């Protein structure tokens, strides 16, 4: 029998190392070390208050917006191996490389076009032709182009909830980020819109890395390559999604995903 070639491990996009986070006196994340692989989807699951959104928000320094928050440890972003949490690194720069999609669609009170172009304008891009090209690419990548190409100047609020969320994804993609953070991106959507967002994530992972927080365990099982189960600010278990959902190692993980928690 010919020996199987050793599977090459996936490339790292980011790596949390002994990450700690405090909201004032509250120790929300405890020594979290977790890889995020390139062009893969990593899902974070766990009960409310376990720290998964807090963890996600560390990746684009969202917590910097409020005083009294403290980071410890680091999050390295590759290929340049820079610590995202370092005080020398500008959070705006971080957000150009790591963008975010939120739970509820939150388009700006502007036209569809201007929503998708927003990040590019912040970056200082003003040339109309260039903007149009980037906006079109982002809308195509967000699987929204065909539905909005004839009404780009209409207000974004004219769109349905699912379309608004895809517009937000287009806005997040327009700046050509390396890592996209999804914070329960479908919890406010109906099943069909949810399915289209999930399908979209699977297409997107060919170009970007994705980190997603979801309360919907079946969603994590459907879309992710890797899954981390968090509880009380700690990573209880991290593994291939396939393994987590068929044969997890830790009893706490099993209790949670089989609905025996509490």
């Amino acid at each position, binding site marked *: 029998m010919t020996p199987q070639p050793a599977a090459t491990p996936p490339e790292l996009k980011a790596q949390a190392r002994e990450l700690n986070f405090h909201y004032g006196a509250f120790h929300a994340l405890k020594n979290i070390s977790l890889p995020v692989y390139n062009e893969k989807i990593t899902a974070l699951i766990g009960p409310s208050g376990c720290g998964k959104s807090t963890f996600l928000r560390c990746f684009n320094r969202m917590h910097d917006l409020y005083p009294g928050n403290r980071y410890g440890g680091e999050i390295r972003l590759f290929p340049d191996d820079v610590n995202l949490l370092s005080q020398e690194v500008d959070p705006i720069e971080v957000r150009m490389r790591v963008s975010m999609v939120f739970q509820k669609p939150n388009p700006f009170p502007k036209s569809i076009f201007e929503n998708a172009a927003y990040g590019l304008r912040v970056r200082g891009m003003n040339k109309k032709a260039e903007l149009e090209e980037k906006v079109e690419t982002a809308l195509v990548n967000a699987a929204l182009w065909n539905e909005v190409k004839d009404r780009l100047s209409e207000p974004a609020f004219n769109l349905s909830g699912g379309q608004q969320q895809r517009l937000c994804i287009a806005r997040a993609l327009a700046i050509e980020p390396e890592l996209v953070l999804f914070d329960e991106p479908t919890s406010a959507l109906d099943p069909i819109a949810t399915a289209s967002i999930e399908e979209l994530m699977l297409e997107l992972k060919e170009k970007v890395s994705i980190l997603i927080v979801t309360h919907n*365990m*079946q969603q994590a*099982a459907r879309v992710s390559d890797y899954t981390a189960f968090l509880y009380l600010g700690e990573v209880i278990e991290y593994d291939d999604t396939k393994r*987590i*959902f*068929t*044969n*997890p190692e830790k009893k706490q*993980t*099993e*209790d949670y*995903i*089989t*609905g*025996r*928690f*509490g």
Partner: protein
Amino acid sequence: MEHEHTIKQYGIELKEIREQLLEMGGKVELMISDAMKSLVERDTALAEATIAYDHQINRMEVEIDDKCLQVLARRQPAARDLRFITLALKIVTDLERIGDQCRNICKHTLHLNKEPALKPYIDLPRMAVAAATMVREALDAFVRADADLALKVCSDDTFVDQLNSQIQRELLTYMMADPSTTTRAIRVNAVAKCLERVADHATNVAEMVIFMVKGKDIRHTA
């Protein structure tokens, strides 16, 4: 400690499936011993009753399958529960096949009982007891999630296989000594083969129990 499901009805559904599988296991065990009894004691009425009894096994297969599908569709089981449900779907097939094998034994018995006894049956009842024990222990292992007991069942299969070979050799000597016994000898051989298959189904169940408990597939590794 085993936590209960937050949704209690879900826990009840899994418990019902487990109990029905056990009930089905008890019924096929009874079929194995009745089939053997009908042969050894030349009890044609019991053979006919056992053949008829197989309908109950078939009905239970359909019922358990249906319950498993309902749980898959409505509860999206994961991890241990997922392994349990997929296992239940397979165990039920093995149990139903054991029922079929018992029915086959009884059909041979109906023919054999019309003719003079070929020989006193010594090894066949031993084989039947061993196979029925394997079925019971495989299901016990399933209920108690006992991988060690399941492993024992897998190794006991060798004993049944050896008895089967021994019976074949013995029947061959009968047929060579007196070719007029050939028809009966072939039937008796077929009964032994049925019991050998029963033990194989019990082994399948035991292998699946090991998978359920350890999450490790040991099939086709021997």
